[in-house]
């Protein structure tokens, strides 16, 4: 077994757990997938390629991720909705500084209480992952959406 295959099998469960956390609505656990100092962004393919600094969401710390979840639970008003992440191919490589670069395609089906269900988002995560005593954590996670157009709003994390 090559090193990269070993790495693949070490990283893949992180993504399964990440998607499961969101899809099963354990939102308070979502920030725990990240290091304290981290970068989380939802942006568009167009903005990512042009290196434009503003996407749709940009967080620079785990605190900001916690604030997102608190805002979703306490402040924001939106229709009840659930995600189903459809995970695509995973590409991993280790870097010289010991972190892991990973890329995975995803689709998200969003279902409203009415039963209305749609392919809400598709895209690819460009991630940097680090080994910590608690396990693998995201240092950077950039969700690059294929489309620049979002239906209605994004409140549940991607």
């Amino acid at each position, binding site marked *: 077994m090559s090193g990269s295959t070993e790495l693949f099998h070490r990283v893949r469960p992180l993504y399964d757990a990440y998607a499961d956390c969101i899809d099963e609505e354990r939102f308070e656990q979502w920030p725990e997938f990240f290091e304290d100092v981290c970068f989380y962004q939802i942006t568009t393919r167009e903005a990512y390629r042009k290196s*434009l*600094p*503003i996407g749709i969401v*940009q967080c620079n710390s785990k605190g900001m991720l916690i604030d997102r979840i608190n805002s979703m639970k306490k402040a924001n*008003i939106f229709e009840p909705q659930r995600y189903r992440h459809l995970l695509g191919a995973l590409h991993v490589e280790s870097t010289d500084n010991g972190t892991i670069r990973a890329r995975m395609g995803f689709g998200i089906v969003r279902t409203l209480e009415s039963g209305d269900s749609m392919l809400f988002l598709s895209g690819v995560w460009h991630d940097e992952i680090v080994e910590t005593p608690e396990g693998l954590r995201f240092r950077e996670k950039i969700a690059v959406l294929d489309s620049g157009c979002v239906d209605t709003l994004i*409140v549940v994390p991607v």
Partner: protein
Amino acid sequence: MSDVAVREQRIQWPEAGVSRVPFEIYTDEPLYEGEQDLLFKGPIWNFVGVDVEVPAIGDFKTNFVGDTPVVVVKSSADTYSAFVNRCAHRGSTLCYEKTGNRDAFTCVYHNWSYDLEGNLKTVAFHKGVRGKGGLPDDFRTCDHNLQKLRVQELCGLLFVSFDEAAPDLETFLGPKMVAHIRRIFSKKVRILGTFSQYMHNNWKLYMENVKDSYHASLLHTFFTTFKLNRLSMQGGLVLEGDGGHHISYSKMATDSGSGTDYESGSLRAQNDEFALHDDRILKSWPEFEDGITHAIQGIFPNLIVQQIQNSLALRLLIPRGVNGCELVWIMFGFESDTQEQTDIRVALSNLVGPAGLVSMEDGVIGSFVQRAIVGNQGRETVLEMGGRSVESQESRVSEASVRGFWQTYRKYMGL
């Protein structure tokens, strides 16, 4: 125009005037078609882009006027041209990219080719092949140019008009609106991000929401929780002319937070116990000398200029059929910004847009109306906050600018 007659039969404006709006205004298909001709292609100016989006000669951007696809292009060192994005031959889409650069606009279907001003220059096989086929001798290329639009610019903002009867752009906007645009766009713009948001409601419901300063602290609970915008802050509503354009503004630093309903804790929006784990999304610097920290400018019919602290944006609303619309966001700063200032604008951008902590509700509230008014024909909306008239007001607990929108809308639509 027969469709005007049909529309007038269908929709009767209530006798109460602009303090009432018939629900059919958001659902009527013939009215939607009428809006394309009488409003968007009428004697008004439609925002299509910023000069920095098309910096070099031949740079173009595609956009929409109402739901009509258009192209705006930098056609010489100091001129811009615009035309309908449709070949004069068979009606095929001319530019199917969002942006690009062209020496000439050549239709992919039959290679009819137009210069940067939209004039037809060459027609493939116009003399036929070996003397057979080809165009009639009396075919004149100058009769088959692209459908051209007028273009006028203000501070780098590019506007187009279908109608020769439209007054000059600055006359259309009015002095107060022009002054506000000059205030924001005083330096060279740097675009920091663009995206769009599809909403399941008639476009006018979103424009009303923008002009409705009454709802801000009630629907958007994040805002009030963090004292970003309270009605008790110094501010007001400025209406221009017949009320179609407006500015709602406030000054954050002057907020005392006392002597209002907020203190009683009776409003759902209030929650002082809520603390942020990372408050850099609240950081800002005083950018404008007049001390105004929040200013939302609505340019009739479908442009918004946003200043939320240092989060600056242009929002263009594109109608997508009677039951939908797409809001295109252009987030910007200035070329002269420091890295720290850019970082502040980026952090503040978390407050706005389709995932905006403050304003995400705007993406869905229109659809709450749109789905509820089905089957309610003959009923109407109530707009009496701040009175029943249309004028500038000191209080933002007002629907005066919403009434102003309808006053202007009725004028163009003949309703």
